[in-house]
């Protein structure tokens, strides 16, 4: 029996003979034809949007989905074109990708690695997708990234903030536009120093899994560099709900700063509860007690309500930025859906355009061509200022936003304000930085 890995069905249509219920099977090797998995046939190309639609990050996933649908509209020449007009590359003409109309399929990751992989497999095997985009957790991103590497399709990660995604778990077929824990730490450092000085006693509450650990490590490193002391790092179970028994010990620990390495619902709950315990009304070591949430998202901010007022954190991007790219994106997203896009939505939108552009520049859908086109690619006009995709680890380097909860919100979207745009140079690191070491990008895999 001849065999082929993830072979392409479309190319095999040649010698099919339908007999009386039984056909003479025709085996063909796919390799000789397209040379890579799911090479688009005919006039369309299909991409897969794999986002959480149920489970704790469902809202974020749905926002990603909205942005991705918008991106597809823009690529196909509908709508106002959004960021395609401000993008520094001008290869995208609104006629799809390489002249092929873009179609998409959607899947539900449930924020579970197994399910996400099943969904991605279905996109690759059944729907013949050439690229998978999206996701809202590092565990899922790493799981799907590994799968795409094996299958030979491109993975454009959505919201994933763990250092590991482009650190020890990096893969040649995977790309991350989103920033990471290290960058959050590096960006927050100077602002925290300016606001809170050099002598702080920091108490960390950390979600007890890999993302939490890498972020905690990054933030501790950058705050300790300022002269802060890490009093304690307490790991909390994911989805604990009630964090009171972790918060109570902080009161008399001598700490004057609480750093919450939590995300999503955990962060909403732990922050709310910390404030209920009166932490922010306290004075310790002659300083006002303060709380920091290193990774922010709009949805978390909305969930935490007034509790985030004055709390510092960092973001990959925010709709309040005033550059042309941001304005164009916010306009087309806002007009279509009636509210501003979230950071997760932005990343997924940009990733879709970046992929399309890379294909145009490479002149092929072959993943290896795309990888080559994206590696060390510099671009601008996508809302983050001058940005580049580093070839060594497939991490995007760009400015990072330091945010603060708005003290006096004027409307329901006015939850966070931009405190500082930390320049890219400040958050860069070497690919073999200890926090990212141990991985192996490997070779790009075109599959079939």
């Amino acid at each position, binding site marked *: *029996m*001849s*065999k*082929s*890995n*993830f*072979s*392409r*069905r479309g190319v*095999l*249509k*040649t*010698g*099919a*003979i*339908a007999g009386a219920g039984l*056909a003479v*099977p*025709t*085996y*063909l090797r*796919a390799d000789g034809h397209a040379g890579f998995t799911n090479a688009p046939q005919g006039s369309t190309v299909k991409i897969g949007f794999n986002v959480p639609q*149920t489970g704790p990050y*469902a809202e974020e996933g749905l926002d990603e989905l909205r942005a991705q649908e918008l991106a597809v509209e823009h690529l196909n020449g509908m709508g106002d074109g959004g960021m395609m007009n401000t993008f520094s590359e001008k290869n995208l003409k609104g006629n799809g990708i390489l002249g092929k109309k873009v179609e998409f*399929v*959607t*899947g*539900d990751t449930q924020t*579970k*690695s*197994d*399910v996400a*992989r*099943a*969904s991605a*497999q*279905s996109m690759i*095997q*059944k*729907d013949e997708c050439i690229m998978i985009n999206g996701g809202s957790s*590092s*565990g899922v991103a*790493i*799981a799907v990234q*590994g*799968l795409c590497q*094996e299958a030979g399709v491109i993975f454009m990660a959505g919201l994933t903030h*763990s250092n590991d995604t482009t650190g*020890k*778990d990096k893969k040649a077929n995977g790309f991350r536009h989103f920033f990471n824990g290290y960058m959050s730490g590096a960006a927050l450092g100077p602002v925290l120093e300016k606001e809170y000085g050099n002598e702080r006693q920091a108490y960390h509450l950390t979600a*007890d*899994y*890999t*993302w939490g650990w890498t972020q905690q490590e990054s933030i501790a490193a950058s705050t300790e560099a300022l002269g802060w002391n890490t009093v304690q790092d307490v*790991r909390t*179970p*994911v989805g604990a709900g009630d964090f009171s028994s972790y918060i109570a010990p902080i009161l008399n620990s001598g700490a004057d700063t609480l750093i919450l390495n939590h995300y999503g619902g955990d962060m909403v709950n732990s922050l709310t509860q910390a404030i209920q315990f009166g932490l922010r009304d306290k004075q310790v070591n002659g300083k006002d007690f303060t709380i920091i949430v290193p990774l922010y998202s709009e949805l978390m901010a909305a969930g935490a309500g007034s509790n985030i007022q004055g709390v510092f954190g960092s973001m990959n991007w925010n709709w309040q930025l005033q550059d042309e790219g941001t304005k164009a994106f916010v306009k087309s997203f806002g007009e279509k859906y009636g509210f501003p896009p979230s950071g997760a939505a932005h990343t997924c939108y940009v990733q879709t355009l970046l992929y399309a552009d890379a294909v145009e520049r490479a002149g092929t859908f072959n993943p290896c061509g795309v990888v080559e086109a994206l590696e060390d690619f510099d671009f601008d006009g996508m809302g983050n200022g001058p940005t580049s995709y580093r070839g060594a680890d497939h991490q995007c380097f760009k400015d990072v936003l330091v945010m603060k909860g708005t003290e006096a919100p004027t409307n329901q979207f006015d939850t966070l304000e931009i405190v500082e745009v930390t320049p890219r140079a400040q958050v860069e690191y070497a690919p073999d930085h200890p926090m990212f070491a*141990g*991985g*192996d990008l490997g070779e790009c895999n075109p599959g079939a």
Partner: protein
Amino acid sequence: MLGLNSRDFKLFIIVCIMALAAPILLNPFPTASAMGESFNAGYPALMQRFVIFGILVIGFNILFGLTGYLSFGHAAFLGVGSYAAVWMFKLLSYNVVPAIILSVIVAGLFSVVIGYVSLRRSGIYFSILTLAFAQMSYQLAYSVFTPLTNGETGLQVYNDDPQILMGENSPTVPHFFGLEMNAQSVVDVAGWSFTFQNGYYLSAVFLILAFYLSIRIFRSPMGLMLRAIKSNQTRMSYTGINTKPYMLAAFVISGMYAGLAGGLLAAMDPLTGAERMFWTASGEIVVMAILGGVGTLIGPVLGAGIIKYLENIVSKINDGILHNWFAFMPDWLDNALVTIIHPFIGKGWHLTLGLLFMAVVIFLPGGLVQGGQKLGGLFRRKKTDDAADGAKTPAE
């Protein structure tokens, strides 16, 4: 035939045909048609899940169906099986044979320990004990045991793993003595295209073996003993039978089935995460068993198939696809239909699932097998005398 009576043999042959011809049977619609794009399930990843979860639930049914002991922590065995298999890939090579063997053994040992402790209690107390063990395994695997499980990221094979048996030319994907799991042949017939994948067929062979073994167990003296335990434990002990070893044997066999399923999952896709052991995963197994028909032979396979179908197919249908289907209708009707169906598809697939559970439990207490029998009964009413012969063989 094969030590089975004729009814069982027929059923076994049906399962064999279903398993071996699944790539064709599950692709009833032309590939490019709207129906095919939405409803065809004959792609390897999903078919693998059908049969692997089928194995898992067949094993679960040996415990729950025969003895009535409801384990609410069965996913833990699936999880440890997967971890064991991936560790074999990391330490030895990508050959699936040692991986599957070890996963069955490890899950077996694990179930000996959990079973020994949990079986000291019965009823809901037993269920809660198994649940507690599984939840502890999950929580620890997610956090404290990260060096062993790689935590949230999931255990996977890295290029710098020892893989001591890995030769120069060994495949870098799971394989059966060189036969790569993800290698496949595609056959195109007119508008249809059928994918035959090695990995699927390996799983299917295991399903057939697992199914065969489960028939033999059901029909064996041990199966009889287990059903007797379910029926009346008191009489059992006053008949001079020690129920504990029988229960433990059933528990361990069932745990090993789960381990096999876990090993196969890892063999098909060499990554495993802690959430495989979460209580909802255990709950899903229970639901599959009850949906299909507890204590029946074929029910578990049906139940597993339906849940996985919903999870993978219904969750992917979105409004765009709906509009596509109804494109031939007038716009207002199209929109109205899409509005009605919208809550039940895509992100709403859980709603469909919940309603389906309720409907089955309310109307078909014996699961889908009972539904099938009722339906069959309608057609076969004339041949009542025929049925008298076999009707007394319980647990079809």
